[in-house]
């Protein structure tokens, strides 16, 4: 039983740390909570038998790291668009082509200003 909870907690902690480094970092909270929960159960069961293994402490360390990284990214990472040059170029070209197309159209119902 103790081993199952330790394995599950370790898997959840690894998943949490992977998600934390990805752009979807806020999703890391779910496996982190699971890792903490299973880790605590494993810790409690280990304590009962008298020997707490280092792996459980490692699981807590991983979980805390992922939660810290997730919180940092949520608070400090800026939402910004950096690929504006590409879009500006596309917009400019598109407008030039559109004007050429519009010149060929019958726009009698729009008055010239």
């Amino acid at each position, binding site marked *: 039983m103790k081993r199952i909870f330790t394995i599950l907690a370790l898997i959840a902690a690894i998943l949490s740390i992977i998600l934390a480094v990805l752009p979807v970092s806020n999703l890391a909270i779910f496996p982190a909570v699971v890792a903490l929960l299973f880790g605590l159960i494993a810790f409690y069961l280990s304590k009962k038998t008298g020997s707490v293994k280092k792996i459980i402490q490692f699981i807590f360390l991983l979980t805390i790291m992922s939660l810290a990284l997730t919180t940092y990214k949520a608070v400090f990472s800026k939402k910004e668009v950096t*690929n504006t040059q590409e879009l500006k170029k596309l917009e400019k070209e*598109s407008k030039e082509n559109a004007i050429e197309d519009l*010149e060929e159209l019958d726009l009698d*119902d729009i008055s010239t*200003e």
Partner: protein
Amino acid sequence: MKKLVVFLLCLASFSNKAQKNAIAAGEKLTYTASYNMSGILTDIAEVTMETSDAKTSKATLLRLKCTATTYSKWDSFFKIVDLYESYVNPKNLTPYLYKRDINEGSYYKFMKYTFNHKTNTINSIQRKKNKKEEQKSFSINTGTKDIVSTLYNIRLFDYKNMSVGSKKSFTIVFDIEEIKAQITFLGKETISTNIGKKECYKLSISSSENVLQGKNNNLLWLTADENKIIVYGKFKIPVGTGELKIKSAQGLKN
């Protein structure tokens, strides 16, 4: 007969006044688009809606431009650079030219519609990555608009005099197909936005196709002032649910 003509002229002038009051060139609205990922709303892209003049030798049209670009942290995973444009009559937002240039990950699609309102037809050009250009001509109903001009056209309705539950129908042409859509006025609601606390007109949008899912899952909040700008939106589409929140508004007419 004379009375009828006078009445129609009055109606037309009122309608034009309403249209001119809401939208003008030089307006720029910026939004944050969020997508629901496993129950957590994640900001993924910036959406802008911008108006400007487009001058030809014959006339000055209004260019309605919508762009969607992913925030830089998503670019290495799934980069989106979308451009939607509609060149419309500034008086009644009737579209003459519509262009859609979408670049999403490895998917690319270009679509161009040239409207002919005398014959009620559209000449379309479609380009896809590694595929031949497709040209097609098809008929449309009177009053059919593209998606961009429809989004702006929603702002021209007179919500002040609409009763709760009243509906407005319109037809949108999208992917060489006409889609019937309907907005239902759900009343007024005051909401907090990035540009302040705003009293809004709450609208529900539904479509004949399965593009917009559910009855009251697609909602729009338009400011209950003369500008009637979209400040908040909730949507449910086949690939998930999300939100659109206003970030900034510049160059508003009123």
